[in-house]
């Protein structure tokens, strides 16, 4: 890609030439086994140019393997990987024109920060001086221009991952792959870098696939999230979609907090503790578990009038979280319920309360 000479050579302009020309990324029926164990059962994923898609799921769900297949670090048993409409399944990693940030620190220990950042450019035959200039610009973009002469071991974990990000972006790759790049960092740095990655991604318009097991991370930065479980994509949608309209119990259980409450389903609704709740997804019959979000649980002081809807419960734990409070309740049947309510409603440990549900749509699973 040529540098637009008309633009002043600022950090942004050096990299922004790629903006808006993101590449479409597709995985088509990817199957992958490791020694007899199938870890991906036909994964399909279609990422639009410039889109930020997260692969979210518990450890061992196959999300990292899917990303590695996309990068060419693993070869799929069947299925194909398409970049910009071209089948790259047989193209080796180094010819795929990708940028990747790894979970473990991956900077080359023997090279200074600037040399690390320029590595990809040098491999593409960019002359030393030009590569150094573009590397410096990329470091400026992640706010580390002043550390260009350091060696990786002289940087903090967050700084190392920032350099890794600059190193991955400097070659203006067609797709940015992030393999849990934040999981080794402490909470505060993690949030900062997460937001920074998203800002950069939006600014550069680069197609990005982000692997994480942290739902909060995925919800915060993604255009769309693919929730994976046992080697399959359970559901793919916007963060709002997944949270409000989970299609499967696994998604409901993994995205956001929910309590599994016993109920009786009759077609498109389920009755839990005397409240009829509409069922989201496929209709069901008979005993089921309804996955209820904490904000749809109401807590009131126990007035002991048996005619009230709901059940009585005892406060197990109540956590102040700023603008709201989250409380764990144990019903007389021993079922745990998460409730979210205003911070003013203080509940004491052991207090007896009445729990009621708001008739909002729920996802159900068979028991």
């Amino acid at each position, binding site marked *: 890609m040529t540098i637009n000479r008309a633009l002043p050579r600022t950090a942004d302009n050096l990299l922004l030439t790629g903006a808006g020309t993101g590449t479409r990324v597709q995985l088509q029926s990817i199957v992958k086994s490791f020694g007899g164990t199938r870890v991906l059962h036909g994964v399909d994923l279609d990422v639009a140019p410039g889109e930020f898609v997260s692969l979210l799921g518990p450890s061992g769900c196959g999300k990292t393997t899917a990303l590695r297949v996309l*990068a*060419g*670090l693993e070869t799929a048993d069947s299925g194909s990987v398409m970049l910009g409409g071209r089948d790259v399944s047989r193209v*080796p*990693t*180094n*010819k795929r*024109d*990708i*940028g*990747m940030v*790894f979970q*473990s*620190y*991956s*900077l*080359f*220990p*023997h*090279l200074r920060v*600037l*040399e*690390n*950042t*320029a*590595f*990809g*450019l*040098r*491999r*593409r035959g960019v002359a*030393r001086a030009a*590569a*150094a200039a573009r*590397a410096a610009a990329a470091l400026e973009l992640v706010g580390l221009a002043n550390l260009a002469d350091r060696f990786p071991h002289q940087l903090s974990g967050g700084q190392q991952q920032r350099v*890794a990000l600059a*190193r*991955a972006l400097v*070659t203006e790759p067609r797709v940015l*792959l992030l393999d849990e790049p934040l999981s080794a960092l402490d909470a505060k740095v993690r949030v900062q870098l997460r937001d920074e990655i998203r800002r950069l991604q939006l600014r550069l318009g680069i197609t990005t696939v982000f692997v994480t097991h942290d739902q909060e991370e995925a919800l915060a930065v993604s255009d769309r999230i693919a929730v994976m479980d046992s080697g399959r994509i359970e559901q793919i949608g916007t963060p709002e979609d997944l949270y409000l309209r989970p299609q499967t119990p696994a998604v409901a259980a993994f995205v956001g907090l929910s309590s599994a409450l016993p109920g009786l389903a009759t077609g498109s609704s389920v009755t839990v503790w005397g409240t009829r709740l509409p069922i989201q997804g496929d209709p069901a019959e008979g005993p089921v578990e309804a996955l209820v979000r904490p904000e749809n649980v109401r807590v009131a002081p126990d007035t002991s009038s048996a005619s009230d809807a709901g059940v009585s419960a005892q406060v197990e734990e109540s956590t102040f979280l700023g603008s709201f409070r989250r409380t764990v309740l144990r019903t007389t049947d021993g079922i745990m319920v998460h409730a979210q309510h205003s911070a003013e409603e203080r509940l004491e440990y052991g207090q007896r309360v009445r729990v009621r549900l708001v008739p909002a749509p729920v996802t159900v699973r068979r028991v």
Partner: protein
Amino acid sequence: MNRLTPSPLTRAIVGIVVGAFFAIPLVSTLIYTLRMPDGSLSWSRWTGLFDPHTVAALKPLWTGLGNSLVLCVVTVAIVLLLLAPTMVLVALRFARLRRAFEFAVLLPISIPAIVLVVGLAPIYQQIGRLFGTGAWTLAFAYGITVLPFAYRAIQASIDAVDLRTLAEAARSLGAGWTAVIVRVLAPNLRQGLLAASLISIAVVLGEFTIASLLNRQVFQTAMVVVQKQDPYTPAIFTLLALVLAFTLLLLIGRAARGTRKARP
């Protein structure tokens, strides 16, 4: 002060004892070569080495030394170009083979050289037919005897870095396998490769049994031959060989430090 840190006095004593342990044999050898029958000290035996009269008598030594240096080069080449890449491959691709590989590689240490020769003799008949009977062919045998030492040195370096992630990061940045090995892995295994090379040189320069039994003329066998006529000359050569080894160590060490400032 940390109670585990030795006091300056203890450190000085330890330093002197260890230093003496290495220095006494060397200094004694040096004095031995300098002392004349009348008790005076003179460099005449050293300068005598370059005397046209003695040069002829020393011919086997020079030949042996030359052969040994060639063997050093070939053996180090085997270590760096065959063993090291194989170890990297095992670490990156065939992790399951590691134990079996380690066992095979450490095996030569448990086999006495004299036993090894019994097996090597018929093989060397074949090698003789294929490559001739040049002394350099001994490097095939030396390549095996240095395996355990070189393996340990290199493996320590491999264990110290996350080879897989480094290789994958380099590949994702567009590096082909050659660039991965030359630009990323080798510099990070530098210390291990250096140690393996030096230890290989030391083993090759000190090897006697195999060379002697296979009738090849190397430094050590020549020393034995020359010693029968003149006990002083081998002592001088031993000292020279040690100086050579130390110089080599310093040179390679410096060269390796130089590559640390590699440019992007």
